[in-house]
């Protein structure tokens, strides 16, 4: 579903009404708008975490271990979503965790997008052996199940948040390379490219200024989907002990620490996972909306 290889020949910002038209189609999709609202709220929560969080994320309240959420018997309004096994406020940790998840998404997508675009441009523009070598390497990366490859890469680099992000970026990057290559090959022989070449544009200018802006639509959709994928994979690595290390309030890492209490204190497991699900769902809703808004085939409805 994510490998749409057709380049959409829409020129953003070319027509004055392009953005308004795009927003018109996007806003017709209620799910996408809902996703955008939730995502905006998450960004605000992440930015203002120190102001919103009732407690410091790593503060341990030794006399309040495994306090249930406030609406349970024994719950207190001091710890709205309860506390974990060492007495830390779960709500505050979740709020600070939003920072990590969004940061992970941004860093991974930036890295994967930039390297994927460069490789895809080179492969699609020059073809020949450059193309063969680059695309074979991409095939090799894609031959391994993504999480397994990320795990082995993290094992090589050493567990930790930064290495986990790097590994996930490497795993996600071939999708961008393939998309860019396909789009470049579709655009390369169009008249506007040929005329730019005749006008004396160099290869770098042709690749970056002439062709790339016309390949953006599928890349933006893919970037959105990769953003949510990155958050999921980072949480999975954290859960397996190979991502962010305790006491970092990363959501997956929180789940790993909560595993042994699942039957005694279900709330320590419930809320971090819910936070991951809501975030990823919001981003995927946005991604679906973007795809439909970009896709001229569906624009009729």
């Amino acid at each position, binding site marked *: 579903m994510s490998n749409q290889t057709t380049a959409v020949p829409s020129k953003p910002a070319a027509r004055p009404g392009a953005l308004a038209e795009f927003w018109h189609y996007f806003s017709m999709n209620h*799910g996408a708008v809902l996703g955008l609202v939730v995502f905006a709220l998450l960004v605000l929560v992440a930015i203002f975490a120190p102001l919103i969080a009732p407690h410091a994320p790593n503060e341990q309240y030794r006399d309040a271990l495994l306090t249930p959420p406030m609406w349970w018997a024994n719950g207190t309004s001091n710890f709205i979503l309860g506390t974990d096994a060492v007495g830390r406020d779960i709500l505050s940790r979740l709020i600070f965790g939003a920072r990590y998840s969004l940061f992970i998404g941004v860093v991974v997508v930036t890295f994967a997008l930039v390297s994927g675009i460069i490789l895809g441009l080179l492969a699609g523009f020059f073809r020949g052996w450059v193309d063969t070598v680059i695309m074979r390497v991409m095939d090799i990366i894609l031959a391994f199940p993504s999480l397994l490859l990320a795990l082995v*890469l993290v094992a090589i680099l050493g567990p930790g948040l930064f290495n986990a992000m790097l590994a996930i970026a490497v795993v996600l990057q071939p999708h961008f390379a393939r998309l860019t290559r396909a789009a470049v090959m579709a655009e390369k022989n169009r008249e506007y490219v040929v005329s730019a070449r005749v006008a004396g544009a160099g290869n770098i200018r042709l690749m970056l200024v002439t062709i790339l802006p016309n390949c953006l639509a599928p890349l933006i959709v893919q970037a959105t989907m990769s953003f949510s994928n990155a958050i999921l994979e980072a949480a999975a690595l954290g859960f*397996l002990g190979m991502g962010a290390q305790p006491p970092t309030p990363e959501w997956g890492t929180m789940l790993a620490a909560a595993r042994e209490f699942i039957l005694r204190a279900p709330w320590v497991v419930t809320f971090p*996972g819910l936070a991951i699900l809501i975030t990823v769902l919001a981003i995927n809703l946005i991604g679906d909306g973007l795809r439909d808004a970009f896709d001229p085939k569906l624009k009729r409805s």
Partner: protein
Amino acid sequence: MGMAPRPGRHLAIARTMFRYILNKFALIVPTIIGITLAAFAFVRLLPGDPILAMAGERGVSPERYAELLERFGYNRPIWVQYFDYISGVLHGDFGVSLATKRPVLGEFLTLFPATLELATVAMLLAIAIGIPAGIFAAVKRGSWFDQLTMGAALTGYSMPIFWWGLLLIIFFSGTLGWTPVSGRIGLQYFFPPHTGFMLIDSLISGKKGAFSSAVSHLILPAIVLATIPLAVIARQTRSAMLEVLGEDYVRTARAKGLSPRRVIGMHAFRNALIPVVTTIGLQVGTLMAGAILTETIFSWPGIGKWMIDSIGKRDYVVVQSGLLLIALIVMAVNLVVDLLYAVINPRIRVQ
């Protein structure tokens, strides 16, 4: 389409098919070589020393160290080690686990049926629910059923399955006490593994309650592993159906007065099936990645858990050969899907 094949036509089709297969293989060989190189290189880059990992807590004397280095060939040039490894692999020798001292291939083959059983049941579940759900959603486009199904599908697609597994354990094993928390079958059941598939073995054994024990162990992990493929299949089926339902020949069939059931079943679905089959094939990699998490949560003794444990133990040889074997399986399945695709969609063979 639909034309009676002329004599001699079969031969032409067989010839294009053959050329297509040869082309696919020509593409796949460099990738396989690349995979072996990657698996070999990754593992050489892992921090730590294989000999020390093998010796464990006790450590080794310098003389013994040198001797082991010599014996396992770790002191020879790296490319000699690589070719050694490859020639071993070609003869079915995937090395010996540093932790258990048993051949890696043997361990893989004993654990693989557990993963295969889990993945097969998960995939059947995903197909059995996903395809009908996708068809109905497309036919009743815009209805509450469509919106509910697609909402559920996107939620499933966004699911952190390791958390989903924990939730199911809390509810079905904790609150309701219906299902066990881990393993493949109750400890009281003992029988020889004829096939390695617990569902079949428990039936063969004829022991009372063995089969239902196996089912109750399998059901939660299978649901967890099925979640993402199910969501993907439902979404893909819906969009493929929508595309086909708008085509001229479907409208013609409707205009001819065929019943909606015939139009949807015979005309639309048959053609929508092509992208759905591809999607199902592409889920095999997803299943392997999902198996790592699912098997960890449910202590399911399969390949995923084996790989995680081996990475934790720094068991070089297992990680290297496990990576290689898993990648080869995924590639083989993708190749089969490609060929199937060419069989059902004649257009692809020609290009």
